[in-house]
């Protein structure tokens, strides 16, 4: 009786030993391919001519559930109608990675990248300023958006896929 139970249990185990298909990855050496819409590290984006997309409207700051974002906006010098974010800070220690800020941004200046290896020794290194966030955006979205005025006047192009919208070239890159 006991041997029968043992045999039944071991049969399952042995079958897996014979049909050995590993499902684990040797992490630092092998890495998973993450999906396009992965909600990883946040980044600020630029247009193709290097100007920042952010207009400093504060929507991301207003919608953030854990008050990660701090924006101080100002007028662009010599261009009194345009505004930009003079300071833009993110305290990533508190971020929930919920993606509400990306959803809220009316000009798609924010993006969620596929970066996730952000373990640091000092917590203060997770307090990111505008330059650092732009740098993350530059390396994660190498194909930048063209400026709006070069596009069809009423259609904006976005960095993140929306339901049913085909992926663009910039997003298929790994």
């Amino acid at each position, binding site marked *: 009786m006991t041997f029968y139970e043992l045999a039944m*249990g071991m049969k399952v185990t042995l079958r897996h030993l014979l049909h050995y298909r590993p499902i684990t990855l040797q992490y630092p050496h092998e890495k998973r391919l993450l999906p396009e819409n992965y909600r990883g590290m946040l980044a600020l984006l630029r247009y193709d001519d290097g100007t920042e997309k952010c207009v400093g409207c504060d929507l991301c700051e207003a919608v953030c559930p854990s008050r990660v974002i701090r924006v101080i906006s100002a007028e662009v010098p010599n261009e009194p109608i345009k505004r930009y974010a003079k300071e833009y800070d993110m305290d990533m220690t508190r971020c929930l990675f919920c993606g*509400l800020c990306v959803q809220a941004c*009316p000009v798609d200046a924010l993006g969620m990248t596929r970066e996730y290896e952000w373990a640091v020794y000092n917590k203060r290194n997770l307090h990111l300023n505008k330059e650092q966030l732009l740098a993350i955006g530059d390396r994660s979205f190498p194909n930048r958006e063209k400026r709006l005025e070069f596009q069809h006047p009423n259609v904006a192009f976005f960095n993140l896929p929306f339901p049913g919208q085909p992926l663009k070239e910039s997003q298929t890159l790994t």
Partner: protein
Amino acid sequence: MHPVLETLQQQFPIIIQSVNEDPQRHELSAQVERGGWGDVAQFLHDDPAMAFDHMTDICSVDYPDDFERFEIIYHFLSLPHGTRIRLKVRVTEDDPSLASICHIWAGANFLEREVFDLMGIRFTGHPDLRRILMPEDYDEGYPLRKDFPAEGKGWRSQMDFIPRLDEPVSEWSADEIPSDQRHQFMAGDSPDESKRTTEMLLNMGPQHPSTHGVLRVVLELDGERVTKAVPDLGYLHRGVEKLAEGLNYMQILPHTDRLDYVCAMTNNYAYVRAVEKLVGITIPERAEYVRTIVAEMQRIVGHLFWLGTQALDIGAMTVFFFTFREREVLLDMFEKLCGARLTLNYFRFGGVDSDLTPEIIASLKEFLNTFSAHIEEYDTLLKENRIWLARTKGVAVISGEDAINFGLTGPSLRGSGVAYDIRKLEPYGMYDKVEWEVPLGKAGDTYDRYWIRVEEMRQSARIIEQCLEQIPEGPIIAEDAKVIPPPKPDVMRDMQSLIHHFIIFTQGFKPPKGETYCATEVPKGELGFFLISDGSPRPYRMKIRSPSFVHMGAFDHMARGYLISDIITIFGTYDIVMGECDR
């Protein structure tokens, strides 16, 4: 008027101050005078026409401007009649006390303690009225009162019990524990001179791997047998309910992911349903199908997680690897669907965030094809395994009546043979359009609950299969410019959408004044959200009825008389997750 309210008014013409039937949300409520509360509660439980045998929740609300400042709100469910009722009792600030109903519904014990802890209402006749979520010696007040600041009193770094970094490390000395406190975990010497003079107190947790989080239990032992088990909760208390009062409805959604972090999808679902009931949004059919599918996927994930960890706790390691292999497949699908694996934040008011792509549907179908074979595999490992049988059969037995009285829900209740499943009783989503069954146990022990969870996985697979066949084309989110953010491409195009976008994301939407309770069947039991809206974009009060918390109320009852080694099985039998229990 509903017959229940009529009978109540006839029976207690003075004590029942007013009754109300919400025509839109089909909810009954009655205002009770505080002096007669004990009689009304007894009548509700005992009268066969009422038979409110299941205690759902106790909530407390603070109205600082009113003369009778605190309102205690009770939710009851009648399992024989399938009706829910909400009773409200007001107490004043000078004398915040109310008759306890612990002797009628045993499940009220922990819930009343929670109300006492967070709002400061004293329940007369309660056997053990102590703080439950906050530390027992916490004397800063009652956190859920409106005059308590949401950010807490004082910064954490300034609290004197946390050692500061610039201070020298203090030397530990024997005098640190005063001598009169040193023996508090030893029962007093018994007067007789027999051999066994004292019972031993064993402290289990909070850092114990099998408590699935940080749960501490003080066990009173007679030899190897447990004579009393006192759970000590609150190590993971984050004050989500207090946080929610400062956030608008949309911002609360990511916080619900972190309640039951194993099954974020169903938490989202429960919260979103409650808000939709409050506002009155109808959801497009395809979105309902998608919701049902992902909720059942999450149920499978939750049960797989339970099966693996329960088996691992008891000693069978192989099952853990096998169940996590399948869980991984489903989590990968979630990742493709919404970009995250655990904290999903996938649901939106009026629909869902992204559509099921053909690729996900194909991989889901492929998963379902092989899934029944995988369940067979777990069965061969466990179903007739002698050790598994010995350690689960007849352990943590609870009878059907007791289970109802303690307010258990979900597989813990159905294991005792009570057919209460919200998906059947109050069908939501697409559960009434598909064929499936509610598995029921007989013995009410851990083995029956194991069997139920395995069977529920099969039923969930059945539901998903039928939903995938029936799913129509169409929009995945409702259109309501006042509540639901317009689609992003529209925001860039026309001014109207941009204005609505700005209003919703800066201020949030304003639901009508009112209150609603909405229960959803999650893998652990009944997760209910009770929302009170005062017409502002933030909830005036949000109460989470978490199944794990209510289940822990029955822990003492279920653990008595078992061996220490069975305590681990009994923890696991509820499928407890501390994030949800402590909130």
